[in-house]
């Protein structure tokens, strides 16, 4: 391939060999380092291709053998240029094309976000747009390390992020962590307090003083593990107090109230099967040309696909958007009792799955489904066990004793 390109760039000739001692001519050419390729014998006439500069070096072989090489056609870039030498505008167009591509490669034309789960790519790109990074921004103004730091500091659940510019594409890879932020705030000593009402089921203290016992009923805001540690002397008298950051695990038995309802009457989409397809050319979000066949749909769903112009990572600010409209009409329908129950159960299941994903242990499910009139309701409590606690800073007055002004006698000894 590279060789073909080189041949094209330097130019080559197709020649016809006239004479009798063709084989001898070929051997002589090979000996002199003249490469011949695509040798053909058509009805006793020999055709070959030869490089432009080798054609002149053939002279000694031509003289010795009497074979006459006749040029059939001239191929390659030098000849193309020569033939088009008077087409100034064409050359200008080619140059302009190169210049435009070069100029366009200085900008970001596409931002792709991968790996995000709870944050949609649109949310991330919207956030980046607010911070001056968008499709069309100059590459040199995009600071990848800055983007990484910005995303990490704004979204706390993003554990790892990498921003990379490849061609004209900004690729952002995100890895979200489902770990809740249990690291204590760095400044000062901390208590562990209850996040909600509940009964203490288990308590493990690593540092601090336990303030509750197993079985205690606690209210939201109650101290579970105190950050104040008393220092007891040998004679069991209080020597002093110290503030630390409490550390440990407290499992509380709590409950969640669950309520959900559903109207039995509802509207359903019924697709007619009619669909039409249109397409448009967009630059960024700006529409250049678009075409859509006329239609008489009253209600329809529109689904669109985007195709970006460009090669691999070098994308251009041009997009083709294909839009397809699906016609439907609305129809009122009534859920049967089984359908309603199944739907409510499905929603409850999703709610419970969400709780489990947050490390909540479900001990009992007391949700009942009831259908009365034209409404189906699901309500009840979900009993759980979870580590429902948070940090609260230890105030100074909780442990610092009021300073006793000690009278110090300064004894001075005067020596004379």
């Amino acid at each position, binding site marked *: 391939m590279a060789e073909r390109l080189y041949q094209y760039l330097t130019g080559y000739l197709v020649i016809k060999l006239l004479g009798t001692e063709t*084989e001898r001519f*070929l*051997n002589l050419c090979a000996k002199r380092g003249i*490469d*011949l*390729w*695509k040798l053909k*014998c058509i009805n006793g006439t020999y055709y070959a291709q030869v490089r432009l500069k080798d054609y002149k070096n053939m002279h000694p072989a031509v003289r010795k053998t009497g074979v006459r090489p006749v040029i059939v056609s001239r191929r390659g870039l030098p000849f193309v240029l020569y033939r088009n030498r008077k087409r100034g505008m064409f050359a200008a167009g080619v140059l302009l094309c190169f210049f435009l591509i070069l100029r366009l490669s200085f900008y970001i034309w596409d931002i792709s976000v991968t790996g995000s789960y709870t944050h949609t790519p649109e949310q991330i790109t919207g956030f980046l747009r607010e911070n001056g990074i968008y499709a069309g921004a100059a590459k040199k103004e995009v600071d990848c390390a800055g983007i990484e730091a910005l995303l990490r500091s704004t979204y706390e659940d993003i554990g790892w992020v990498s921003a990379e510019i490849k061609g004209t594409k900004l690729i952002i890879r995100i890895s979200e962590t489902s770990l809740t932020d249990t690291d204590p705030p760095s400044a000062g000593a901390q208590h562990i307090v209850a996040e909600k009402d509940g009964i203490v089921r288990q308590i493990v203290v690593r540092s601090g003083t336990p303030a509750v016992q197993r079985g205690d009923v606690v209210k939201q805001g109650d101290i579970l593990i105190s950050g104040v540690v008393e220092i007891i002397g040998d004679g069991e008298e209080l020597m002093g107090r110290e503030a630390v950051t409490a550390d440990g695990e407290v499992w509380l038995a709590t409950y969640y109230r669950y309520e959900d309802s559903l109207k039995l009457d509802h509207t359903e989409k019924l697709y007619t099967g009619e669909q039409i397809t249109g397409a448009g050319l967009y630059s960024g979000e700006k529409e250049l040309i678009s075409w859509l066949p006329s239609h008489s749909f009253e209600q329809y769903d529109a689904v669109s696909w985007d195709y970006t112009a460009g090669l691999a990572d070098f994308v251009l600010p041009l997009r083709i958007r294909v839009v397809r409209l699906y016609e439907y009409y609305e129809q009122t329908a009534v859920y049967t009792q089984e359908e309603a129950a199944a739907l409510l159960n499905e929603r409850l299941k999703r709610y419970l799955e969400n709780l489990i994903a947050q490390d909540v242990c479900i001990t009992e499910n007391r949700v009942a489904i009831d259908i009365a009139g034209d409404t189906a309701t699901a309500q009840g409590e979900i009993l759980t066990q979870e580590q429902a606690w948070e940090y609260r800073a230890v105030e100074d007055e909780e442990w610092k004793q009021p300073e006793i002004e000690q009278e110090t006698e300064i004894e001075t000894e005067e020596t004379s």
Partner: protein
Amino acid sequence: MRSRKTRRQNSHRDLYKEIERQEKKRHKDRESLLEQLAGRIDLPADMTAGVPILTLTGRYEVRIENYRGILTYTDTLVRIQAKSFCVCIEGKRLEIAYYTEQEMKITGMIAGVTYQART
């Protein structure tokens, strides 16, 4: 009239001549001394004895290295001179894809490859 002795001598002479001829023929069909040596000491024969290498890829392509030159070239027959013999490639619509001093490639529908003694 030739004597019995002369006849016997003549018959012996013919027999030995025939044996010698057969021996010569056998010698000719054998590998050359250099090729034998190359085989013995495990050296590639193309380097020591200068024999050509033919690489046939499927039916439509043959690459040849280590040769002297082309003897004949038509669209049905290509004869190539090697150091001690001649390689004939027969086929239809034979083309020489490229031809340099070291290597050449012949494409086309190849019917057969035969060897001829040095001409």
